[in-house]
Structure formats: C-alpha cells, structure tokens
C-alpha cells in the first residue's frame, strides 16, 4: 500500500511539474465545454426559402404569408425564373424552393385539390427531413383553415376529430444543451483518461525512464494502479468542474443522485484507463499510441449514440456497443442527470461498465512486461 502511495505521489509530482499538461488538464475541458455545448444543435430554425408565385392570387399570398409567419422559415428570395431558383439552391443561398403553379387559387376556390411543388436541399438528411416536416406543418395548417372557413359552422362540428396534444417531459422546450452536455462531459472525461494516461506510460517507455521502475521490486499490479489513480482523480475533478459550469452557465437540470453519477464515472474511468494502459503496452512511441487511441476513440464515440439515437443503429452495432464503455456512460449520464433515474433503473449499465472495467484492467496488468 505504501509503495502505491509513493508511486502515486511521484505521478502527481510529474504531472504538476509539466507546465503545459498541468494547465491543459483543466483549461482544455473548460474551453471545450464553453465553446461546444452551445454550438452543437440539431435545431433547424432558419430555413431560407425562395418563392416562385406563378399564381399571384389571394390564396397563394396567404400561404406565403404563413411561411413568413412561421418561426422556421424566412422568405429570402422571390423570383419568377425557375433557373434562378435552381441556381440559388445550388449555390446554397437558399435551403428550399417553393413553386406555386398558376391555377392554385382557382382550384382551391372551386373546391378541388391544388398542387404545390417544393424542392429541398437534402445533403444533410436530418435537416432535409425536418424542413419537410415543418413545410408539411404549415401546409396542413393552411388546409385546415380552408376547410373550416369553407364549411358551415354547424357542419364542421359534426365531423368527429381526435385532437392531439404534445408534451415533452424532462425538457419541456426541447433544449439541445440539456441533451448534449451529458454527452460532451463523457467525451471530455474519455479524452483526458485515454490520451493523458496512455501517453504518460508510453512516454516513460520512449525516453527510457520506465527501466528505472522495472528494476525496483514494484509489482506489476502496483505499477498499473499507480498509473491509473492519478488520472482517475483528474478525470473525476474534470467531471465536477464540467458539472458546476453546466449548472452555472447553461442551467442544466440535475435530477438524480450526484453520488450515483460519480460512481458511474469512476467505474467508466477505470475501464477507459485500463484500455489505455493495455494499448500503451503494445506501443513503443507516443505517435503510435496516439493513432491507435484515436482509432478506438473515434469508433467508440461515433458508435455511442451521442449524436444519433441508439435505437436507430443496426442490431450488430447495438451488440458491439455492449463492450463500448462510452455508449454506456452516455446513456447512464443522460438518464441520471435529466430523468433522475435511480440505481435500479441503471443497474444494467453499471454492471456492464464494471465488467468492461475488470476485463480491460486485467488485460493491462497481464500485458505489461517488466522485461524490456
């Protein structure tokens, strides 16, 4: 035990003496949190429209007015040339083109269905889909008002209708910051754990100081634990910092138990650090380590469901995510922070994380060789 404590002290000394790293540990997550959390949003608010009104009737003007009134759309260009509209779409100056053909108002007045053409820039599939949904929303509003104005008051009330009311729990206004912050926190903790711990060990190898430890009676497990503990503490400190900032700056709700959150994060860090030390045992230079680590981080993060819903992934990807600690912690964080899930609700995530942690740490201890 004493040996481990001395080794841990040595690690902390080394970290604190490295001016750059000791600052980066806290400055980098801070800046990232401040910059990234407000930036990452899937909200689609300003869809720039180019309108071609070939009809110029009261109905078409009413519809255009509705688009202008919608918070999602802005009519930026009006033109009567299809070529011009197309080139605006190609140059990215507008996101969607609406073409109201002549005869639109006449058809509606006669009680017939009227046509409307819309072209949407869908390079970003998500954005295209949402633009489509909003467009449909405006049009069905318009339709309803036509129908109700055309019918007698008495007749309209006879038609039985199911009314739909929408509500969103835990995040009434669908604020994306609430959704992203728990995820970004996980990425920051992962980056710190993965990068710092692994690079630290490989650096010792690369400059040869690891030999000085190898000739002492320090045992393998002691050495690995001493390499893990400082970064575990730093990771948790970063998490605490991130949570405090999130509360102060973005007013992120915190429903669950703080203790539970840190318990999950600690188990997660052990898993990540174990993997980092395991990989570093295979690498002989920092450059090499960095690339392998990047590979794992990119795969873990992209497959974790941080940006896209977990349920939309194919089954094999969901199976793979059983050994992806990042996926578990992101899910865990969101559940505990936003919904106040208790230990019973997240027991599956905790158990899986623990299993991964034990697995990776065992690998790391077994793989580490004292012989050069």
């Amino acid at each position, binding site marked *: 035990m004493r040996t481990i404590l001395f080794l841990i002290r040595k690690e902390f000394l080394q970290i604190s003496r490295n001016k*750059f*790293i000791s600052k980066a540990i806290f400055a980098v997550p801070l800046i990232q949190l401040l*910059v*990234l959390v407000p*930036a*990452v*949003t899937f909200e689609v608010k300003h869809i720039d429209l180019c309108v071609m009104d070939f009809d110029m009737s009261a109905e078409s003007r009413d519809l255009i007015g509705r688009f202008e009134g919608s918070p999602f759309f802005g009519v930026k260009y009006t033109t009567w040339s299809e070529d011009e509209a197309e080139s605006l*779409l*190609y*140059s990215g100056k507008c996101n969607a083109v609406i073409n109201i053909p002549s005869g639109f108002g006449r058809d509606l007045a006669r*009680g017939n269905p*009227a*046509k*409307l053409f*819309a*072209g*949407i*820039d*869908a*390079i*970003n*599939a*998500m954005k295209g889909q949402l633009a489509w*949904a909003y467009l449909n929303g405006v049009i069905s509003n318009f339709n309803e008002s036509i*129908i109700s104005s055309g019918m007698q008051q008495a007749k309209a009330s006879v*038609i*039985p209708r*199911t009314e*739909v*009311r*929408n509500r*969103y*729990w*835990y*995040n009434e206004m*669908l*604020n994306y910051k*609430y*959704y992203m912050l728990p995820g970004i926190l996980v990425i920051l903790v992962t*980056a710190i754990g993965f*990068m710092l711990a692994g*690079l630290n060990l490989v650096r010792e190898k690369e400059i040869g100081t690891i030999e000085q430890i190898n000739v002492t009676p320090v045992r393998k497990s002691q050495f690995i634990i001493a390499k893990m503990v400082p970064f575990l503490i730093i990771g948790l400190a970063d998490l605490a910092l991130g949570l405090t900032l999130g509360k102060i700056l973005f007013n992120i709700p915190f429903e669950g138990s703080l203790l539970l959150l840190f318990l999950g994060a600690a188990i997660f860090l052990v898993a990540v650090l174990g993997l980092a030390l395991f990989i570093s045992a*295979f*690498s002989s230079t*920092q*450059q090499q380590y*960095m*690339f392998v680590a*990047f*590979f794992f981080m990119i*795969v873990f993060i992209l497959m974790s469901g941080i940006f896209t*819903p977990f*349920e*939309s*992934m194919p089954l094999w*990807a969901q199976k793979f995510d059983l050994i992806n600690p990042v996926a578990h912690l992101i*899910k865990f964080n*969101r559940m505990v922070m936003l*919904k106040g*899930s208790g230990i019973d609700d997240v027991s599956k995530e905790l158990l899986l994380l623990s299993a991964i942690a034990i697995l990776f740490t065992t690998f790391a201890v077994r793989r580490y060789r004292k012989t050069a």
Partner: protein
Amino acid sequence: MKRFLGFVKKEFLHIFRDYRTLIILFGIPAAQILIFGFVVSTDIKDAGLAILDLSKDETTRKISGKIYSSGFFRNTGTLNGYNDIGQVFRQGRTKAVLIFESGFGDKLIKEGRATVSIVADGSEPNVATLVSNYASAIISDFNREMNLSLLSSSPVVQPEVRMYFNPSLKSHFMFVPGVITLIMILICALMTSVTITREKEFGTMEVLLVSPLRPIQIILGKVTPYFLLSFINIITILVLSWLVFGLPVKGSLVLLLVETMLYIMMSLTLGILISTVSKTMQQAIFISAIGLLLPTILLSGFIFPIENMPKIYDYVSSIMPPRYFIVIIKNIMIKGTGFQFVWKETLVIALMTILFTVISVKKFSLRLQQ
C-alpha cells in the same frame, strides 16, 4: 536535390517501419466511412412506445393497433396510471407515452372531440420530435379514414416535395465530405507536427540542422511523405464510398483532386506551424487533437449545421479552414457544380496557406535554444 531525395527516403523509411501507425492511418478512414454509412442513422424505427388507456374502448384499441402496426413503434408496455409514466421513462426504454382520456370513444361520438396526449421523453430532443410527429401523423390518418366520405371532395393543398441532391435522404452524403476533411487534418496537421517536434524532443533535430541540408529542405522533406500518404488516403475514401454506397463524384474529378491538394498543403503548413510553437510531442498532440480535431468535427458544419448555432460561432468557425473545404467538396462531389461556385472558398484556403507559411518561416529558428 540528391540530398533532398535521400532525406525524403529516410522519412519514408521511418513511416514504413512503423507499420502499426500505417495500418491505423488507412484503417481510420475506412472504419469511419463504414460506421457512418451503416451505423449512424437518424431514422426512427421500433421506438419504444407505451400506452396509458384510461378509456379502454373500441376506438382506442383501433388507434393503438394502427400505431403499433406502423413499423415505427414497438410496444413497451401498457400502463395503469399516471404514476407509471415517470417510471417507464426513467428505465429508458420508452420514448413516448400515448394517453387516451377516459371515455375517449364516447366523447368522440357524442361531442365530436376527444383528446389523446403524446408525452415524449424530451431528454433526447430529436427522437422526441420525430416520435411525436410520427404518432400525430398516424392519428390524423385515422381522422381522415374515419371521415373519408365527408372530406374527400374538400379543397386541400397537396405538396409535391423533391429532395434535391439526396433523394433517398442518406446520411453519408453529409458524412463522406466530413470524413475526408477530418482525415486530412488528422494526417497532415497532426502527423507532421508530431514528427517535427519528435526530432526536437529527442535532440535529433540538431543533427539535421548541422547537416548540409537547408532548413527549407528539412521541412519539405518532412512533409512530402505525408502529402503523398494523405493523397492516397483520399483516393481510398473516394473509391470506398463509391463502391460501398454508390456515391459518385458528380462534378469534375480533376477539380476535386486539385482542390484536395490545396487543402492538403494548407493542413501541412498548419502542422508545421504547430510544431514551431510546441516543445514536446504531448504539446503538439494536445494542440492538434483538441484544438483542431474536435472543432473540425463540431464546428465545421460536418455534423451540426452552422446556420443554427449562435451567431458568434459563425464568426469563430469562419477562421476554421475545414468549413470552407467542406463547402467546396460538397459542391463538387454532390451538387456537381463547377469552379465558379467555389472560387471564393478556394481563395480563402489559399490565403490561409500563405499566412501559415509566413508565420512558420518567421518562427522557425536554426538554433533550438536561445
């Protein structure tokens, strides 16, 4: 020239001997393309939906059946009371709960109005929006069917929507350009900055500096292999996305490759710049990884559209080269537009290249310690 070639050969040897890094260098883009193509998807299918039926009549059963048979939803349970809602949400499998008010069917017949509430789990805003939109659509479908005879002749606007550039709404149209941009930052900026600082940290830079090679030759010799490597990598990505997803280059391939070379040069000068300001490899890694990689992913418009961010991010991201390159590559690859649509972006990247070169030359000193 002969000296220079010898030096380039030495650098190539360094790279090839480290086969693990080499594998990863080609593995990362391949893995990313495949993950983005097959895993990252924003479609909703089989979303968990629970029902709280306070009425339990013919109509509510009909609506529930219609919803579960739509293919978008999966039944995650029937609830008995309002208190259950919080519980199923906390367990996390249920994305939305449908609540039929009590006496739903009766009200619908007698008063002509009945209310169903959709409560969605807002902790995942995208899923929540899509799920409640889908459920609403199914319910209004039900309304229409119910009143088919009454509404068939009514005047309605029928929109015909055409999705430009990406008719089947595939996400890789967005991601392939993004991955290319990312990989180049990774290989060019990161690798060069690390190899140069490595020589500094180990003191072998001294050896190179006292050799007859001129500093410009040393730097050029360092970056040439990476220039070639990243170029091969880009070709690999293009071929892969063409073979696996059938994503062709719509515009001029030559123009695309020329623009790519310009962007590679820009990234290389950026890498050199990073190496002149950092003393250790760890520093270089930190600056390029956290200062370049994450902002490239998040602020370049690769995943998150810039237009929707707060205004200030628009300004911040306008000093980030990837933003311009993504526009160029999207225009040429997907929209198939020509040079006249991208000359402004090209100019910005060219100017940035010159700027980075000037700063690096000024900062580069022959002596390591002053």
